[in-house]
């Protein structure tokens, strides 16, 4: 009897692909022989768009890439421009940025744990996770007025002063979250079905993980100790006491445990940052480059002129190229800015962590069961807005 393999399309409209990802699968019975991810359905040319805009006006484009962690994207771009312009930001800004980017990490991981458990048949976690995510989104709203596309972190500082209830909201979240985290773990960590679906599934060795340029939880899940917050600190992360979580087996279950531990470590960092938050201005004072505070614009002549000039013609940058990588929830998010000395970037390159992590999908799927492909796609933690840009 002749045996034939079957070509199967997973996506682009499939609930477990979290967006418009298509995977061309070649299956032999229930086993995946070959997997080929097809991306690009959401390509909007964000890098090209950013080239045509002034640096300030390119910033809102970054929110739209990884829409589950907008603050991290803002931060990466702002740090790169600040490096290009050699701007030092005040201490309070650094603390606020650390708090916001760690909150964003928790927010992104909550969506991940909810949807991943949902893919594997545990319906309830997603409802609980979104409940706690709501508290973070409320903090976003208090800060920026926006719940998703916040654009709150700006070049040289923050968009506006932190709200008066910021500390209260963050402290409330810090109080509530640890107990809720235990709830999720009660639901999943010792759940036999969840363990059965994730343990020894989508395995990638440390050697392969490095070779495929993976980053973030995908790399640390295989036991490689690489975290830019520790290795190449930015925003003053070296002042905080926290541990890097890493896995051993590089399977989907390890990556789940790791992300849960990362939430716990993020809570530790936020606690330290909110306790030690210094007073000070919310934006650096660099005339002609950093926008002056809004109050000054309304009352001072020079500030108004600078504001007007920065908005209409931007600022001239030195010739050269800089790269700034940050540890986003998905992995190493890098911004490479190449400047030709004008007021617009010559080239903005985003190192998209999800895109590079997704490239390893064939390694995770091939030779395993078809139902494990769903788990593999989920455990990579992709956001198609960032993959396709």
């Amino acid at each position: 009897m002749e045996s034939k393999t079957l070509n199967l399309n997973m996506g682009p409209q499939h609930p477990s692909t979290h967006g418009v990802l298509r995977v061309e699968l070649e299956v032999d019975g229930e086993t995946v022989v070959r997997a080929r991810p097809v991306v690009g359905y959401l390509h909007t040319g964000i890098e090209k768009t950013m080239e045509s805009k002034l640096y300030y006006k390119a910033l809102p484009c970054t929110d739209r890439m990884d829409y589950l962690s907008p603050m991290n994207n803002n931060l990466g771009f702002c740090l790169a421009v600040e490096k290009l312009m050699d701007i030092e930001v005040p201490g309070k800004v650094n603390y606020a940025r650390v708090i916001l980017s760690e909150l964003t990490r928790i927010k992104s991981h909550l969506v991940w744990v909810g949807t991943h458990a949902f893919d594997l048949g545990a319906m309830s976690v997603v409802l609980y996770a979104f409940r706690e995510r709501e508290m973070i989104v409320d903090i976003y709203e208090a800060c920026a007025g926006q719940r998703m596309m916040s654009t709150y972190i700006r070049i040289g500082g923050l968009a506006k002063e932190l709200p008066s209830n910021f500390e209260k909201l963050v402290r409330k979240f810090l109080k509530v979250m640890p107990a809720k985290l235990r709830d999720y773990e009660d639901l999943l960590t010792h759940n036999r079905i969840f363990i059965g679906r994730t343990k020894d599934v989508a395995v990638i060795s440390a050697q392969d993980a490095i070779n495929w340029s993976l980053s973030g939880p995908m790399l640390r899940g295989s036991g490689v100790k690489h975290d830019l917050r520790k290795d190449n600190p930015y925003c003053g992360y070296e002042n905080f006491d926290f541990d890097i979580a890493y896995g051993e087996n590089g399977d989907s279950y390890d990556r789940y445990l790791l992300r849960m531990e990362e939430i716990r470590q993020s809570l530790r960092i936020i606690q330290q940052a909110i306790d030690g938050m210094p007073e000070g201005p919310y934006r650096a004072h660099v005339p002609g480059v950093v926008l002056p505070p809004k109050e000054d614009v309304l009352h001072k002549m020079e500030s108004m002129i600078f504001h007007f000039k920065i908005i209409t013609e931007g600022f001239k940058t030195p010739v050269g190229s800089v790269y700034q990588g940050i540890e986003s929830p998905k992995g190493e998010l890098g911004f490479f800015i190449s400047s030709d000395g004008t007021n617009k970037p010559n080239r903005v390159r985003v190192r998209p962590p999800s895109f590079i992590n997704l490239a390893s999908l064939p390694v995770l799927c091939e030779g395993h069961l078809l139902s494990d492909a769903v788990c593999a796609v989920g455990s990579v933690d992709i956001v198609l807005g960032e993959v396709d840009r």
Partner: protein
Amino acid sequence: MEEKVREFLQNRFAGAITREDNFRGDQSFYVSTEDLFAICQALYEDPDLSVRYLADLTSVDWLGHEERIGGRFEVVYNLYSLQHKYRFFLKVILPAENPEIASLTPIWDGANWLEREVWDLMGIKFTGHPDLTKILTPDDLEGHPLRRDFPITWEVPQFNWNKDKSPEVIK
């Protein structure tokens, strides 16, 4: 670490470094097109430097500023040593006509999609790549959008009265 890499490159590949640049702490070495693959292989295999991580691979179009770097395209290899926590850049200058460079896929699997992206968006050809096809843009799109001479267009909604009008070019 910077001196170590420089010394390594000078000892193993005499005259390979055509130019050096250190801007805001980012160290770049400009190397020749022919040597790039051998340099990457040597850096990867050297147990002391152990540059095992290709963090990123990208390209820049310097149309209108060719005299500044000596060619139109610049391919940027962002290399990272996990052991030494050190990042540096290898840069290669390619001409405007038929830009071509050896693929790094034999060394790093991760270079596969990165090179496909550069080919798709910038039109730089990677010889020896196993599957150099479009990755982000639609199949029917002609040209390479990230080139500086590819116009940004304003997509006008199509009605009967303007269906013959060409899209407005912003830049």
